[in-house]
């Protein structure tokens, strides 16, 4: 089974500052990587995903993430955050071998709070 570590449970930042949310996963032959966002009182929605190809992945709302195989990391970044980015962010990994029928392993989440 895969495991996912989100190193920071809470990240407070000021508006317009850059932010990085860190994610590491247990190594495997091949994986698919995802970031999901959960706004208050809502379900999760996909922010971006890495399947293969370019290691820099761009998602919605100006977020991007970089896949680093040697460090087994998939950190999420945004150069300038807005108050509306306040939400909980979850990193997730799927075993790309197809044996797990699409199940994802989630990290514990990082609460991003943007202050004015």
């Amino acid at each position, binding site marked *: 089974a895969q495991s996912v570590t989100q190193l920071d449970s809470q990240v407070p930042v000021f508006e317009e500052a850059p932010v990085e949310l860190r994610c590491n996963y247990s190594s495997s032959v091949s994986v698919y990587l995802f970031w999901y966002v959960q706004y208050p009182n*809502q379900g999760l*929605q*996909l922010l971006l995903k890495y399947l293969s190809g370019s290691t820099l992945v761009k998602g919605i709302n100006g977020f991007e993430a970089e896949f680093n195989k040697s460090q087994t990391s998939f950190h999420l970044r945004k150069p300038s955050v807005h108050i509306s980015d306040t939400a909980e962010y979850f990193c997730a990994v799927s075993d790309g071998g197809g044996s797990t029928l699409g199940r994802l392993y989630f990290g*514990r989440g990082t609460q991003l709070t943007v202050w004015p």
Partner: protein
Amino acid sequence: DVKVTQSSRYLVKRTGEKVFLECVQDMDHENMFWYRQDPGLGLRLIYFSYDVKMKEKGDIPEGYSVSREKKERFSLILESASTNQTSMYLCASSLGGQGDEKLFFGSGTQLSVL
């Protein structure tokens, strides 16, 4: 737009009651999942299903069962609710494939067991 609907947003039950949480998706998805979400613990998989009448245990199946009689509906059952099952329950679905498909989530059911 695609939709995963959970029947209740908030639910309050007594210890020992049998509880049904219902989830319906309108996207003809093969896979359906039940997660519980607790502060500081993230999402933990309870059960999932990749076809009608099929089910697989996730990481924390104890105290739960599921039913998938129709492709669009996946029910989570608490046979005898206990206070440690107070949690947010999230249903999700995906098209299928090899784990590269995104999950679509419902808005969640906040269950309180008193």
